[in-house]
């Protein structure tokens, strides 16, 4: 049974902390009552309370003293409420801090728009030096968490709520790498970013190549763009994010000779209930939208 992204993060970090005394785990009242890290390493777990900005900034002080803080709160609060703290901490200071942000996209579904985050990648991507990952499934999340610890590079990792996804076989795509879920010569290529996008592409039966990107910061996209353009001149980028600030937007700039299309969230503010897929549909991200775009580019 595969774990949802945030549970995979917690499990991996708890295991890593067995042998790495530098790891500190911080939460801002959204870590749940039975956090495995808190149970295994209570002396290095801090529920700071509902204080996202203070949490990010305190992580800077901890990192300056040699610790490796991993901090987590929902994506809308991590990437938007604490944006200035992230800019300074992860960008300017370049502190070895990892921010893990569940509830990304509209995975918060019926919780409503305050709990959605369709802007986070675009915002964080403008901050130089931050590795941005949207891992697909348990194995990829675990790999990204290990990579963040090993490299000490500031990371922003987005994931969903409670849905579990099976990572595709093979190693997770590292920064700048492309993981090919399906490889077919010629034609357009589906490029997925994140869990729901990979699911949509995988279920589309489009007959097209499918490339999975885990890292979508500018530096990674520059390298990945070269690999993608070696094989395909038409890309259909699928992502649970607004078009503004999307990976598609970045790839279009990086590949002026290519035809880059975006299947992403529009400018809507979902105002109805529904599950994750139904909320995705409210923002225009659904199988029919992908099928229409695929047909358009055929």
């Amino acid at each position, binding site marked *: 049974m595969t774990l949802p992204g945030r549970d995979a993060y917690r499990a991996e970090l708890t295991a890593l902390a067995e042998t790495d005394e530098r790891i500190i785990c911080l939460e801002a009242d959204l870590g749940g009552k039975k956090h495995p890290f808190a149970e295994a390493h209570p002396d290095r777990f801090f529920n700071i309370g509902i204080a996202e900005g*203070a949490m990010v900034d305190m992580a*800077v*002080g*901890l*990192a*300056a003293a*040699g*610790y490796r803080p991993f901090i987590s709160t929902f994506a809308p609060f991590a990437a938007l409420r604490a944006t*200035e703290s992230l800019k300074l901490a992860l960008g300017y*200071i370049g502190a070895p801090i990892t921010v893990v942000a569940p509830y990304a996209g509209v995975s918060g579904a019926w919780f409503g728009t305050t709990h959605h985050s369709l802007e986070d990648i675009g915002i964080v991507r403008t901050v130089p030096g931050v590795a941005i990952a949207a891992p697909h499934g348990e194995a990829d999340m675990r790999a990204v968490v290990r990579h963040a610890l090993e490299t000490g590079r500031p990371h922003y990792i987005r994931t969903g709520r409670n849905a579990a996804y099976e990572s595709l076989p093979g190693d997770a795509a590292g920064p700048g790498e492309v993981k090919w879920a399906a490889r077919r010569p010629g034609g357009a290529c589906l490029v997925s970013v994140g869990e729901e996008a990979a699911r949509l592409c995988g279920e589309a039966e489009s007959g097209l190549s499918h490339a999975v990107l885990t890292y979508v910061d500018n530096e990674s996209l520059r390298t990945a763009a070269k690999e993608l353009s070696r094989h395909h001149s038409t890309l259909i980028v699928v992502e649970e994010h607004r078009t503004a600030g999307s990976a598609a937007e970045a790839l279009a700039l990086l590949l002026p000779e290519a035809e880059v299309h975006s299947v992403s969230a529009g400018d809507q503010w979902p105002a109805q209930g529904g599950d994750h897929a139904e909320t995705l549909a409210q923002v225009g991200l659904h199988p029919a939208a992908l099928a229409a775009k695929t047909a358009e580019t055929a």
Partner: protein
Amino acid sequence: MTTATEERTNALEERAKEARRLVVDMAASERGCHLGGSLSAMDLLIAALDGTRDEESKVVLSKGHAAAGLYAALHAMGILEEDPAPRYGLLGHPYTGHPGPKVPGVSFPTGSLGHGLPYAAGWALAQRLKGTGGRAVAIVGDGELQEGLIWETVQVAAARALGNLVILVDRNGGQNDGLVGDISPLPHLAERFAAFGCDTAEVDGHDLAALTRTLAAHDSPRPLAVVANTVKGKGVRAVEGKAASHYVVIDKARAEKWKKGIR
């Protein structure tokens, strides 16, 4: 007969005067500087730097616009070797209008108000985890206390019993657009910190003996908030207590005159 403590205080007072003269030099640079707040915070900076000479302790100037004061204090205390005044604000040198970590003795970039205190709180938490006995002193402005991030952090620091964190408030009564009392007053300041769970003290922020004594005496599981009553522009009679001293550009002749009058 002069005691060792008095001698130490006298020496610190001389360093504060030297640093104030450097601040005036920076006000006479092409760029000018945040003069009033640099001078009001000077004795706090000198006392804090003197009281945190161990490697496990840090001073964080959260009110980063007083960068000129910080650079001058670091130089006067022998932590920053080169004289920052002739290099202030110039290409090729790290002495920007708000401090960054390229300056020796500066660990964190500050200037966007509210961030220095949580940086210091994180450092204090780290030292407690390591059991070093190190501590952190954050110098915050009274205007800066209008930032929500300050109170988020005071809440966390009290809840986490960060007794090795000192919040040193430079209460000079001024802010960018005028007087704190006119814009968004902060009455009952010490009581506010006490209500959050801090130990509190109120001192004359230009009494170096009182400041060093207060910083040295604290031994408690509660963070210490020191409300230091200061005078904006302290040391330069022409600008003392004037809100307009917040940011000043002067010529060299005036700087020489002001420096001679520094008491």
